[in-house]
């Protein structure tokens, strides 16, 4: 009973801390936006050229799938950071001094994360209700049919994501930007893993398939296929959940997910996975022990001086230790440096702290861009070159907030006019340092269109990083967005989405130049408001 009360208060405090922040409103706004996009028909689930009639079953299925796929990706980034918050606010040290066990703490943090994600599911449920009534293709409400995909597909997925976010935070390698990048690929893997081999071939899923279906999408898809085959025996087994695109031309009547005991048990298993992940996290959790944090505090090496006790004794000692003459005045001329010095300082700050192999890979990528055949260089090699420094870019614009150095930097002269542009130039140099080999190749090949696209990309990437860093005050937003953009837009050479600009068919230099200007303007304006006097 007592433990239950402690757990309740931990989760409650965690939840209230988050919901009282502006970022929570942004989180809900995102859920509303996603709900609206689904309602407006911009997010479409279709089988060949069919979609379901907008009845409770179809709307519920659509919302459930959108939530357990798209929202789980974003939700992770939203909730990750709860342990870090306890660390930075130093509340963690107070908690560490209580009898609370590590497992209890990581479980409470997972529940806190889940409460936030569940509130987003709630928004989607309201959106589903509104959608069915406003779309009015079938106004008969079947609440269980409408809400069961959200309750049994979305909520268990969210519980697992909530616990994974805690697990990532406790693992030293995954707690930072590397974890943010890896999550995207892990999420992709989780979605794909749910599609069993039988289902891929058009057969029925086995019972085992249900248990590793993270989103519920594949098992729902199989049931829909059975229904649609009755309408169209020539169904080609094409299923898509897409944003935008041509709306399907035909409709069919979908009556909802037919839940059986195995499916329900499989969905509840994800709650068990979540508890297991939360408890696993407790194994790695450092319990706010500074000795186990990243920078091990070493004993202060006191200079060799006699021991001093109390102020009176200190005064005696210091009396014989005059200060005069130790500091020579600075001449006015020495207080004028060149912009390039600030750029060099920012560049040094950006590149500091990596291991030797990081620089070796970066150098290898430069050489790879230079030495590989041009199609490979402007394809796979440049992609690798422009994902490698992601954690360097992601510090841009947010480093001052992260390390609480704003008061030192922002009280320096011309912080807006000098320091901010210096950060951007340093970011451009980093982008060139890994991918610059391609520019030389394009120049030699006299591919001016490719070169223009490359130049714009070199400006665009650091602009995106700087703007998102300044606007969000953290690195996570850029790490998440850039990874998704890099994979879906650049790696697949999506027309309009490929910011690398080196493949003629997907390159849009003008678009990305305009975006660069907009991002820099937004970043400049935001930083102006952060400085009391610009």
């Amino acid at each position: 009973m007592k433990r239950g009360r402690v757990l309740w208060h931990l989760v409650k405090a965690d939840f209230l801390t988050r919901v009282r922040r502006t970022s929570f409103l942004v989180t809900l706004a995102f859920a509303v936006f996603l709900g609206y996009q689904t309602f407006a028909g911009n997010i479409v689930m279709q089988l060949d050229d069919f979609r379901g009639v907008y009845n409770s079953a179809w709307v519920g299925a659509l919302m459930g799938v959108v939530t357990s796929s798209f929202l789980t990706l974003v939700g992770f980034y939203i909730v990750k950071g709860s342990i870090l918050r306890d660390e930075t606010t130093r509340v963690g040290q107070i908690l560490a001094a209580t009898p609370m066990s590590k497992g209890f703490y990581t479980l409470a943090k997972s529940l806190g994360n889940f409460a936030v994600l569940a509130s987003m599911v709630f928004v989607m449920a309201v959106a589903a209700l509104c959608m069915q009534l406003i779309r009015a293709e079938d106004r008969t409400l079947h609440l269980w049919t409408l809400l069961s995909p959200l309750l049994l597909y979305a909520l268990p997925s969210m519980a697992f994501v909530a616990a994974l976010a805690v697990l990532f935070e406790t693992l030293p390698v995954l707690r930072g930007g590397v974890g943010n990048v890896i999550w995207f690929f892990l999420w992709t893997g989780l979605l794909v893993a749910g599609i069993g081999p039988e289902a891929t071939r058009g057969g029925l899923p086995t019972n085992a398939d249900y248990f590793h279906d993270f989103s519920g999408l594949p098992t729902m898809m199989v049931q829909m296929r059975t229904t649609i085959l009755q309408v169209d025996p020539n169904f080609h087994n094409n299923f898509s959940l897409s944003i935008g695109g041509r709306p399907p031309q035909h409709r069919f009547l979908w009556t909802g997910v037919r839940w059986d005991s195995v499916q329900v048990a499989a969905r509840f298993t994800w709650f068990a996975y979540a508890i297991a992940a939360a408890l696993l996290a407790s194994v790695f959790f450092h319990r706010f022990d500074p000795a186990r944090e990243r920078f091990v505090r070493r004993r202060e090496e006191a200079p060799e001086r006699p021991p001093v006790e109390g102020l009176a004794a200190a005064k005696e000692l210091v009396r014989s230790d005059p200060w005069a003459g130790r500091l020579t005045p600075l001449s006015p001329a020495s207080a004028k440096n060149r912009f390039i010095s600030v750029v060099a300082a920012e560049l040094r700050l950006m590149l500091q702290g990596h291991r030797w192999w990081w620089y070796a890979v970066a150098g290898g990528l430069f050489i790879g861009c230079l030495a590989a055949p041009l199609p490979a260089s402007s394809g796979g090699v440049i992609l690798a070159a422009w994902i490698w420094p992601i954690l360097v870019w992601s510090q841009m614009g947010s480093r001052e907030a992260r390390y609480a150095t704003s008061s030192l930097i922002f009280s320096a002269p011309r912080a807006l006019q000098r320091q901010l542009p210096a950060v951007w130039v340093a970011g451009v140099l980093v982008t060139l340092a890994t991918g610059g080999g391609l520019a030389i190749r394009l120049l030699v090949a006299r591919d001016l269109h490719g070169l223009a696209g490359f130049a714009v990309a070199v400006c665009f990437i650091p602009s995106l990083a700087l703007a998102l860093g300044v606007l969000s005050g953290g690195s996570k937003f850029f790490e998440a967005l850039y990874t998704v953009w890099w994979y879906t837009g650049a790696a697949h050479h999506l027309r309009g989405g490929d910011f690398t600009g080196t493949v003629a068919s997907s390159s849009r230099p003008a678009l990305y130049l305009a975006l660069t200007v907009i991002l820099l303007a937004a970043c400049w304006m935001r930083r102006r408001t952060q400085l009391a006097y610009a």
Partner: protein
Amino acid sequence: MKLTIDNVGKCYRGKVWALRRFSLELKPGVLGLLGPNGAGKTTLMSILATITRATEGRVRWNGTDLASNPNALRTVLGYLPQDFGVYPNLSTQEFLEYLAAVKGLDATAARRRIDQLLNLVNLADVRGRPLGGFSGGMKQRVGIAQALLNDPQLLIVDEPTAGLDPEERVRFRNLLSELSGERIVILSTHIVSDVEATATDIALISNGALVAHAAPEGLLRRVEGRVWEWVIPSADLNAVKQCYRVSNTMRRSDGVHVRVLTDEPPAGAQPVSPTLEDAYLDSLSVYRAGAVA
């Protein structure tokens, strides 16, 4: 060299005024800014350091309004905030080099200055060690060094001795005294002995308002002949506290030595020389009594 604070006020969200109609004119010397927790000291420091904009009023540096030209002050400003962070991957030397560049110092002058500063704050031996492993006191010394990087004409230090050991505290006080000759130093603290050791002027602040601004001697004169001390049994201490404004108590083998502020001497009490702490407590209680009335 003149810093003018003219009717400055700062209102935070929720219409909470941290500072109201605050005026002061500062010339070279050390101003000790004293006040209880939440008095508005840090808000005032942030405004003077161009970190926060005042809601009302003006701050002028040598006649230049900060609102129109903050860089006029920033180029000659050294600021040690109460809470500040460091980049854990950088060494002390690298961190100071970075800040020197951001502050606009040229590389050669910066290197020479950093060498001197690291010796000054006793961090020369650990100049190459990453800041992430530093103790609170060592970080505070890095903060002191960065505040002096550009040889500032206006040095603002907010609770600078927090986390320093007694020896470093005395060293820092001496440093402030020696630096004050040709510059304005504003020392904000609630540790009266820090101010006592260094300040040429004292400003008392409470509830966002200026309570008193005077030289230490002037403040002490206000309580001259009103500070008394005598020895009482432990059992009588509560009764004495009810009757008098007690500024200090000390338990000794012969009983409790009580120090009180009062116009009429208690029976058996001896007059003693007032300290700045007596003057500070007296000024605050007089101000509070006036505010209540």
